């Protein structure tokens, strides 16, 4: 069966990426509308895909396949859309639209940026939908290269440094992944995921070459996901990138890499591989648990707001990877929910931080003192999302945590369960600090800041259209609206568990036969 929807999802953004540059030759501001139109089309397509899978009753309807250029698998490359990839595609498209609306007034506004943005979206969707390991590498590289460029688009020296660091480490990660794929090709002669699954089952999971292949793929992708201690590129990249870019890549790039790890772990290597290699399973759980604890502690130690969020991602992805190692259906459901939830929450937090930084120049936690009175909506968004990240119900944050913890309890991994429960407090250590500073610390009247706030008020006097408590006229309304809507969505998605289970049940049915 050939489903053209899948091909369109990947090709629309990739093709659209040409136009900002092309029309940019003539129109200065061509990039934004084209990028927005492209993202909206992709959102529609992703929504259709999810809906088709959601309503399908047959097994083929729940796993859509498109053979590229008509070459059948395993020789041709196929795109596969099932419940899992549909969810991630939906996340990518929704966050893309949100970030684009947010970026309209803040940029980086060059047409090249919007081309890059569309390319990145295409790459991410490609990673999500591909059913072929080498094809995944290609999209991984597309994503990587564009991300390096976008991080550096701030034009500052530190942005270039962050991008370069990411470039080196990201390339190492992609190379390790490629080596792993190479091993698999040498041993089995196939690159198609489902085909590999069958062949690996015949070969046996304890063969050193297979183990080594998994090891290389695991470490390569963990580097891309930024799990401790392979995270060192990530705080610099997130911190020095422009606000729009940090929101986008923090929400999606690591998320898609984690998706790829889930896909490869369960669709190619399968649960039997984990059962046969207890040592590898234990190592995954151990590294991920350390990542949860150390990431949270590092986040609590930071003073720069974007670094706090960056290290928080290290901890949160630790929770997702731990769920992979737990090898439990319940925990994996939690991991996918948390993957989506974390993407939304981090996008909101970075966008909120971006608003406060462009309005008041606030980039460190102490700069946030008393800002809640000046921009109540943005602060409220950050507070609500922060609490959702901690796992305070009702929010999507608690759903993911519930299932991962339940999975840990079910599989008898008590130490993991305890770490996950304690992670509430670990997350609280940095979230509470931000909220307290925002709401309860008196504003520090440093000269620089006083000057900044005065100028903001100055503008406000001349303009009746007050957006956010009356002082934030320099910040476009739509940026605040995006943050508010996303913050509300993190709460509203508390009721979304049916959507997740319905979409994921057929997929997990295959994973855990």
């Amino acid at each position: 069966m050939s489903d053209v929807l899948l091909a369109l999802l990947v090709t629309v953004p990739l093709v659209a990426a040409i136009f900002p540059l092309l029309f940019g030759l003539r129109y200065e501001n061509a990039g934004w509308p084209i990028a927005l139109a492209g993202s909206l089309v992709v959102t529609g397509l992703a929504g259709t895909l999810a809906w088709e899978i959601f309503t399908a009753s047959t097994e083929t309807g729940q796993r859509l396949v498109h053979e590229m250029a008509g070459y059948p698998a395993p020789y041709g490359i196929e795109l596969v859309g099932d419940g899992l990839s549909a969810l991630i595609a939906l996340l990518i498209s929704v966050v893309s639209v949100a970030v684009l609306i947010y970026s309209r007034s803040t940029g980086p506004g060059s047409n090249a940026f919007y081309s890059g943005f569309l390319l990145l979206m295409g790459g991410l969707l490609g990673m999500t939908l591909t059913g072929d390991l080498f094809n995944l590498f290609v999209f991984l590289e597309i994503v990587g290269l564009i991300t390096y460029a976008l991080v550096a688009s701030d034009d500052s020296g530190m942005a270039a440094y962050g991008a370069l660091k990411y470039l080196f480490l990201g390339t190492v990660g992609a190379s390790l992944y490629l080596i792993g794929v190479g091993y698999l090709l040498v041993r089995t002669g196939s690159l198609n995921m489902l085909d590999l699954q069958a062949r690996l089952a015949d070969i046996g999971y304890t063969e050193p070459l297979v183990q080594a292949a998994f090891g290389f793929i695991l470490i390569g992708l963990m580097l891309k996901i930024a799990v401790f201690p392979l995270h060192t590129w990530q705080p610099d990249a997130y911190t020095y990138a422009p606000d729009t870019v940090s929101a986008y890549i923090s929400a999606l790039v690591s998320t898609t890499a984690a998706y790829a790890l889930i896909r490869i772990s369960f669709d190619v290597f399968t649960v039997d591989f984990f059962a046969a290699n207890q040592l590898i399973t234990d190592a995954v759980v151990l590294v991920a648990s350390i990542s949860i604890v150390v990431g949270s502690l590092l986040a609590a130690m930071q003073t720069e707001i974007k670094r706090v969020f960056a290290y928080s991602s290290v901890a949160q992805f630790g929770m997702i990877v731990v769920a992979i190692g737990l090898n439990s259906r319940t925990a994996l459901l939690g991991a996918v929910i948390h993957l989506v939830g974390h993407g939304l929450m981090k996008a909101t937090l970075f966008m909120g931080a971006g608003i406060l930084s462009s309005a008041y120049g606030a980039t460190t936690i102490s700069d946030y003192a008393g800002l809640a009175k000046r921009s109540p909506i943005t602060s409220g968004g950050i507070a609500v999302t922060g609490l959702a990240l901690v796992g305070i119900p009702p929010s999507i944050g608690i759903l993911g945590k519930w299932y991962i913890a339940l999975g840990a309890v079910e599989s008898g991994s008590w130490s993991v369960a305890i770490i996950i429960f304690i992670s509430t407090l670990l997350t609280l250590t940095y979230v509470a600090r931000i909220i307290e500073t925002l709401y309860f610390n008196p504003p520090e009247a440093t000269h620089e800041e006083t000057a900044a706030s005065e100028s903001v008020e100055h503008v406000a006097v001349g303009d009746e259209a007050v957006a956010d408590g009356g002082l934030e006229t320099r910040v476009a309304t739509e940026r605040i609206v995006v943050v508010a809507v996303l913050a509300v969505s993190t709460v509203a998605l508390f009721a979304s568990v049916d959507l997740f289970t319905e979409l994921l049940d057929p997929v997990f049915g295959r994973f855990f036969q």
Partner: protein
Amino acid sequence: MIEPTIRPLAAVAVSFVAAAFILASGRRPNLREAWTVLASVSMFGIVASMVPGVLAGEVYVTNLGTVLPGVDFVLRADPLGVLFASLASLLWIVTSFYSIGYMRGLDEHNQTRYFASFAVSVASAVGIAFAGNLLTIFVFYEVLSVATYPLVAHDETPEARAAGRKYLAYTFFGGGVLVLAGTVLVYWLTSLAPGAESATVDFTPGGISALANADPTAASVAFIVLALGFGVKAGLMPFHQWLPSAMVAPTPVSGLLHAVAVVKSGVFGIARVVLDVFGPETLADLGPASFGDLGIALPVAIIASITLTVASIIALRKDHLKRRLAYSTISQLSYIVLGLALLEGDALIGGLLHIPAHAFMKLTLFLCAGIIHVETHTDNISEMAGIGRRMPLTMTAFGIAAAGMAGIPLVAGFVSKWYIVIGALDGGNAVFAGVLLVSGVLNIAYFWPIVYQAFFETPDDHDTKPLLEGPFGGRDAIRADGSGRTDDHGTVDIDASVDPDANHEGGVHHAHDDTDEHHDDHHGHHGGPPAGGWPKRNWRGGESTWFMLGPILTAAALSLLLGIIPHTIVFMRIVETIVGNLPGVVV
């Protein structure tokens, strides 16, 4: 009979909606306060409308759909829920008026945030009351923690922020870590029971049957984790530290939330766990054989006994009135927990009845402390000698409530304590009855001097207070504040880290002395009688505004009514219905 209806949801929603209106009308204080009053009255009306039905055996249910497989987000008004909800909403009306008088009397900042947070806090307390399963109660439990944080940190001073941090850390350790863990454990244990979709965390009178047959060790762990998780808000030692620190909050917050809604939600959670999750019979069977009749509830009973004794002794040493009340709260909450943990019909009745009884009495006491603060800026007991001249009605109400705390007949505290003692003796646990009686003596020891000195001593001629001074163990204390006043700066003092006294000395509230027409203070003088002793005020309300006196007298009257005619004012009947519904419990 189970009746699907919107009423439990309406009771919760009315105050969430009110919070939105309060935020929206922040610039018009009178309109804003009208929303608070309107919401509290309508919430009480909705809850009260369900009381007759509930007493007749109806259960009102609002089901908001499935959250997890087998777990719905459900609000359910059963007798136990109605007990707590009617209490919280009734006292919210009382406190609303008091809040208006208090906040305006002190000309506090950020009143909009204060009233909105207050509304959300009460809404989540009622949500906790009506929660139909562990997951729903967990959701509201966490919302309550979030909503009360701005109230604790209201002053925005370093002390208040530190207290807020401490509060968050403790409550999220209790809620986000322990209650969540316990809920997951219960869900897992019930999912192991035979039958598809057997996983449940629904409250069932007498306990979830699947838990009775579950692995005893795991079930015991689940019970202890849940009991401790709710115990954090219930002030069980060693998780009680947040409560004295949280006394930096404005007094109505200490009154309604830290004596009624928040701490009682912890106690209420323990009640749900004991009665409706595990059930007294299952609990008695769990645990090692050496635990005897009480089974796994024995450790909880022991912790409660220790808490109620130790907290009373600490209260003896406190000179700051609100702090002494905080330790008294910690002690009294453990009465309730002890009553529940004794697993015996009369003790359960006593424990549950002590929820409203303690609420009325302690609210009276806190409101008295608040009115004294507003009128005279006096916070320390040692400066209150002879204050009965200045505030006769207030101190009379204080005397009534204090007598109730000690278990003197005709006041609410007597009835509930009587039942707990009887229950302890009936169950063959005389040692716990002894603990309760000793605690009654301690209560008199730390409350009576306050009442006595108010009326029968003068500022010039009075005994030293507090009764115990200096650190326990007799080592000479180094005074952190350098003053001669013996306070709680002892070397073994376990709560020296955050001290509302510092707030008192910092003089945060005294900035508005000039605008307060009733005050007897001078600038630079922090509390205590003015030169020449307390002026005499009449008994017809000359001591303050009726905004504050009215609520105080109402709360005191309620404590008396509950002590004299417990059945007529319904609470006793609700409690008897709850206990009567439990299978296997003999009253």
